[in-house]
């Protein structure tokens, strides 16, 4: 990605009438170049989305469950697709198992209370037929921040 565009898109958007013009000026682009660059990056998929990053807890989503599933290899694809359709599931990944952890399918579920997360997990279990699973709740958030990308060293972090 063009370095000035990459920088501008990581700056918190100013709350002014023409915020993209202000961002563009900070990095030495024109407003039109920045808007076209953002539209292009969204189109190409380099930018997944543009917008607000919210604070889950402040919005009332205090229960954060990582529900992990032991899915037989032949059923991962179907189960993953089914789980991804559920609106309460924000992330769904297949990952390798490791020492003492036989689970290979991960779903992140956000709820206002644990009971909400558990109800979603039960629904997913019924929908997929997977019976071996565990909800692992977060107790403390030590860090949550956007990764920072630098282009001067070719996507160096």
């Amino acid at each position, binding site marked *: 990605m063009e370095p000035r565009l990459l920088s501008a898109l990581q700056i918190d958007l100013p709350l002014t009438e023409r915020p993209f013009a202000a961002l563009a000026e900070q990095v030495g682009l024109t407003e039109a170049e920045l808007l076209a660059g953002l539209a292009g990056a969204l189109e190409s*998929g380099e930018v997944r989305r543009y917008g607000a990053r919210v604070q889950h807890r402040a919005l009332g989503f205090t229960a954060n469950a990582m529900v992990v599933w032991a899915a037989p290899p032949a059923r991962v694809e179907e189960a993953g697709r089914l789980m991804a359709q559920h609106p309460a599931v924000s992330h769904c990944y297949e990952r390798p198992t490791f020492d003492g952890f036989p689970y290979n399918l991960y779903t992140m579920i956000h709820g206002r209370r644990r009971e909400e997360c558990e109800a979603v997990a039960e629904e997913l279990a019924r929908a997929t037929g997977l019976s071996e699973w565990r909800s692992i*709740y977060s107790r403390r958030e030590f860090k949550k921040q956007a990764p920072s990308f630098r282009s001067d060293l070719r996507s160096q972090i």
Partner: protein
Amino acid sequence: MEDAVDRALIVKLQEAFPVDSRPFRVLGEQLGAPEAEVIARIAGLKQAGQIREISAVFEPRRLGAVTALAAVEVAPEQLDAVAAAANAFPEVTHNYEREHDYNLWFTLVAADEARLREVFTAVANSPGVRRAALAPAVRTFKISVNLRP
């Protein structure tokens, strides 16, 4: 306390931010509010801590970066120190204590595989770590963190 307009605004700000010279005016037209009110409401939501910032969410792999989830089992009395050691790396983007024998879970976004391993190994070698594993995504079925208040 947020009202119906704030709630609609939070959804729109996450899902359909206008790529437009006057984005707050466009949002105002959609919500039936003047541009100045939209700006004031967003400032209020940021003040209240509900919105952290407005920026791009990148697809790390498309920018050449590599990502993984790390699971670490730490002796409880060393947990805060190991969490702090992980937090010190800019490559660590999310870091949580979780209710499991593997009690520390963090995500990594690094420039390349070697750097990812370097950061993971540094944390895994911290005092109090009993075992640690790196679990990169093999397949991604969904990434969408839009929360509806």
